[in-house]
């Protein structure tokens, strides 16, 4: 038995080594650096012990906090809309109708596209002067310019995210709905339950693990969003759409404040892991109750 477990760890070893090297090691290195002042342009060019200075600075860094707040605000706009829209579309796709497979195929497209290319396509649509959307809105008298209006830029990104990620919600729900056991639903129908009752008291509770998985993945990915935003608005106008991922990248790299940047990375990672763990618990617990 011991021999077998050792063999299993042997199979896991290469994965473990790679993930330690590119996952854990960078993290520990960042953790170490976050206690130092380090700027490659500084005269000494070496590490200077900073204690908790970087973290103290971070907690009062209004730019960082406002970037974090923008990401959270973005999450609260985009995810509920994607969730409800995706659920409705998934339910309607369970009914057989002509052309269903075609719609499903089309609906999958945004999901597989490169985020950077999505940013490019949306930029081409919304650019003042050449974009079809800005031309059209201009012709009916709406002044639409995402290079100038912070609100318009923010909601264009929300719309782009909905366009990009609703298909993911739809397809995951569809997978969940098609895998549901048929007998309880048929039994409820025989017992005279209304369609709404069946949905609310039977289908939704059975879908709980699916719902948790969708929320888990969407929340993490919404916090990570960088590429599309960089392509579409580059965080502008001003800092209106500089979400937290973009902030770390845009602020730390040009300034090469590696110590401070590391502190930012560590805090962001900690924030994500806590959120991750919390959601993971709900998923596994949800799964156990189903059995």
């Amino acid at each position: 038995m011991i021999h077998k477990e050792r063999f299993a760890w042997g199979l896991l070893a290469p994965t473990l080594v790679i993930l330690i090297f590119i996952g854990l090691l960078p993290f520990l290195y960042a953790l170490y650096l976050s206690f130092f002042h380090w700027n490659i342009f500084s005269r000494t060019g070496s590490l200077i012990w900073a204690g908790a200075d970087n973290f103290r600075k971070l907690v009062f860094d209004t730019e960082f906090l406002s970037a974090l707040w923008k990401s959270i605000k973005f999450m609260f706009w985009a995810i509920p809309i994607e969730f409800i829209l995706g659920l409705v579309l998934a339910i309607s796709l369970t009914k057989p109708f002509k052309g269903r497979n075609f719609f499903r195929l089309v609906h999958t497209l945004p999901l597989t596209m490169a985020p950077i290319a999505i940013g490019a396509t949306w930029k081409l649509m919304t650019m003042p002067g050449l974009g079809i959307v800005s031309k059209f809105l201009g012709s009916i008298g709406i002044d639409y310019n995402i290079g100038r209006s912070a609100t318009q830029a923010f909601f264009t990104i929300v719309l782009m995210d909905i366009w990009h990620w609703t298909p993911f919600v739809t397809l995951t729900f569809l997978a969940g709905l098609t895998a549901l056991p048929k007998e309880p639903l048929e039994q409820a129908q025989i017992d005279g339950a209304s369609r709404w009752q069946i949905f609310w008291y039977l289908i939704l509770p059975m879908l709980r693990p699916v719902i948790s998985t969708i929320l888990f993945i969407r929340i993490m990915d919404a916090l990570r969003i960088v590429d599309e935003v960089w392509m579409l608005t580059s965080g502008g106008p001003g800092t209106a759409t500089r979400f937290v991922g973009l902030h770390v990248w845009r602020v730390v790299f040009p300034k090469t404040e590696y110590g401070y940047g590391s502190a930012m990375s560590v805090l962001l990672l900690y924030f994500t892991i806590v959120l991750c763990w919390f959601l993971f618990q709900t998923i596994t617990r949800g799964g156990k109750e189903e059995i």
Partner: protein
Amino acid sequence: MPKKMILKAIWYIVWIFLTVITLFPVYWTFLVSTRTRLEIFTRTDLLPTSFYLRNYTRPLLNDVYGSFLINSLIISTGNTVLVIFLALLATYALSRFRVKGSQNFFFWAITNRMAPPAAFMLPLYLLYTKLISVNGRSLLFDTHLGLILAYCVFNLPFAIWLLKGTIDSIPKDLDEAAMIDGASFSQVLWKVIVPLAKPGIAVTALLTWLFSWNEYLFAATLTSSRARTITTGLAEFVTVVGTNWGEMAAMAMVAILPAIVFLAFVQRYIIAGLTFGAVKE
């Protein structure tokens, strides 16, 4: 009967509307990619009546975009081969052996997938440029190998996550029967499990490939010239003064193409692959 007809009509109008909305950004990009600089600003119609091929040929053949494309192909394919091989070994261990701490291992692996790339970029950049170098030349910074390894951070956990569902669903009796017939562990994995898990492996491999192909942030941070990918090339249009929109659209189309090809192949399997093992049948 008429009421039913009207409902049906509304149903189809809604779906056609959704289809148009989904496809339009891609169609518009294609349209821009076929037009000259002047046409882009002056034409208002939505028909692809002319095709200005130079938008494609100039960046790919005369500029660096051709080599970016080749880099992307090498890195995505290399990463997929590595990830699928390692993930198969790991999932076999997680699915068929009782390993102490495997739950923790699994959670830790997923944390890597979910962590914001921004959190890894800076330390990974420093690690690549400062720590691992031979004779002052970095082995990983701005090399294909560097990105192939870096992409494991999100693709490996994801592949394990997807493949675990597939391999768990293969009855254990089969490998026990093979063992009784005298097969070794590795024979069970390659001769029994892998052939049965083929559809799942195919979907996982294609998604892995696509994620590598689509990735931007690591590529932008960990390369400078020799190993740049097509996505970083696309992003460079943003900072160029007086962007050539036609060429940008053409390169966006090139970046999208694998996604379209991918859909043609696996659309039947993708839904089955998206359960993440969350559905208990």
